[in-house]
């Protein structure tokens, strides 16, 4: 139960039982091929939720998407925390560990949200050093995600240059979040196709897709609280021919609908991927 491929679904407590029950879904196009979870939400957890974790692990391959690494923080890396992550990944035979290209801890305080790293050369070097440190400890690739952001912070280079430099020079892999590209292109008024073309696409090892909330004429918030919108499906469809065949994860964190609606979204993603990637078609 460890090979991650196809289309996955985020494993959340609100839908834990329904997600576990999907292991019995007979129609492969309506069934997630894997689940993704945040290790921080499950490490050390005993009792009822530990049972749920064991049940999902017995039925689906798992990928891990971290929250608290804070790879871009001015603060020191938290080594004991990384060691906990490592033993969790080992325990559940998890082969993909991704994190956000952002910071969530500063001045010794966790903020539990993702703040934008300044797009500067020194930040690039800082993050590269830390990614290497993380990869040395974990003895695996770190997969780094392009995050959505609402303001750039003291930028000196472009966002795509920032990401590309970090990924190519650190030797890490990239998580391409299609919705985040769409959200950022809208919020910062750039062309999403040019942006994707400037990314290190050969290093993409994993993808995210999600819905968002448009809260004003010029601002979208990346809530993961709505269904995926058509333009984001279109952007996925446009991107896939440029990418290696990688797992894709449907993120839904808030305002979670019934499982049938999520399954319809999984189906729609699978239909798009099967147009470009044969193996997923076979798998589905």
């Amino acid at each position: 139960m460890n090979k991650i491929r196809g289309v996955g679904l985020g494993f959340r407590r609100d839908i834990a039982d329904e997600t576990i029950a999907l292991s019995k879904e007979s129609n492969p196009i309506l069934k997630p091929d894997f689940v993704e979870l945040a290790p921080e939400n499950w490490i050390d957890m005993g009792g009822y939720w530990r049972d749920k974790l064991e049940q999902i692990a017995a039925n689906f391959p798992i990928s891990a998407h971290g929250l608290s690494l804070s790879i871009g923080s001015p603060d020191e890396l938290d080594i004991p925390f990384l060691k906990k992550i490592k033993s969790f990944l080992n325990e559940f035979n998890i082969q993909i560990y991704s994190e956000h290209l952002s910071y969530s801890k500063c001045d010794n305080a966790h903020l539990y949200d993702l703040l934008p790293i300044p797009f500067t050369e020194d930040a690039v070097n800082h993050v590269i050093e830390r990614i290497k440190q993380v990869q040395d400890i974990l003895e695996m690739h770190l997969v780094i995600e392009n995050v959505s952001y609402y303001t750039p912070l003291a930028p000196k280079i472009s966002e795509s240059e920032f990401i590309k430099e970090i990924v190519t020079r650190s030797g890490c892999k990239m998580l391409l979040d299609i919705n985040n590209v769409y959200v950022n292109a809208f919020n910062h008024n750039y062309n999403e196709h040019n942006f994707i073309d400037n990314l290190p696409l050969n290093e993409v090892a994993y993808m995210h897709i999600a819905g968002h909330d448009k809260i004003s004429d010029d601002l979208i918030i990346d809530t993961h609280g709505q269904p995926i919108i058509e333009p984001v499906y279109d952007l996925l469809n446009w991107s896939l021919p440029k990418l290696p065949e990688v797992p894709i994860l449907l993120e839904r964190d808030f305002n979670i609908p019934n499982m049938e609606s999520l399954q319809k979204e999984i189906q729609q993603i699978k239909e798009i991927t099967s147009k470009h990637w044969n193996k997923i078609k076979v798998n589905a």
Partner: protein
Amino acid sequence: MLKETTSLAQQKLANYTRTGDSTGLTEARLERIPQYRRLVYNVIKDILGQAFPITKKILGNEDFFNLCNDFFKEHNCKNTQVWKMPKELIDYVNDENSAYKLAHTFLPELLLFEWLEIEIHTMTNIELPKLYKIDSIAQPYFVNPYHKLIVLQHPLHNKPFKQWNTNLGQYPILIYRNLRTHKVHFEELSIFGYLFLSELQSNSTRLFESTLVNTLSAQNVAITDAQILSSLAWLKELNKKGIVFSV
């Protein structure tokens, strides 16, 4: 190495999300940064509101959210795992200078009481020995490891809020997790029950009899047959509830 201008910009944005003070935060779109402050506080208020529903109800939304704001502004959250973060609110309120503690003397105890339910519900699993029914006090025993013993001064577990400050006393309570259902239960205890369970936890012989003798002699109570019989009956009760077993 990060340049000072880079780390300073990061610190100013982080500080702004906590305090609302954007002084010196120049290289950012200032009309957008309130989104970060809103998002950060949504997480904090949600997590604390879910962890402390009784506190939230008693303080009312306004005071509770003010508490959340002051906590997050003044306290550096240490936990990498956000579900463990609510415990830090207890330390914050327990600070001797806390205005919240002065205004609401029950608050540290209420927060602890609510937190322990989460702490015990989520306690990391450990390997358990084979467990048996209790028949006699001559048996070696095992205490359900997922538990906490506390003595409350306010009767917040069994009296309405209005009577908490007028009924100060000593209320020993056991909070434990059922080994099978994983549900958390509260058990009111007598002082003797509390001392006996405390002794059971710490007694290295792991024999009921010596634990009973220790507890009783610490209280200068003579050990009679009637005493032993009633203790055994009580142990069988605890056994049925899944708190103490023989091994």
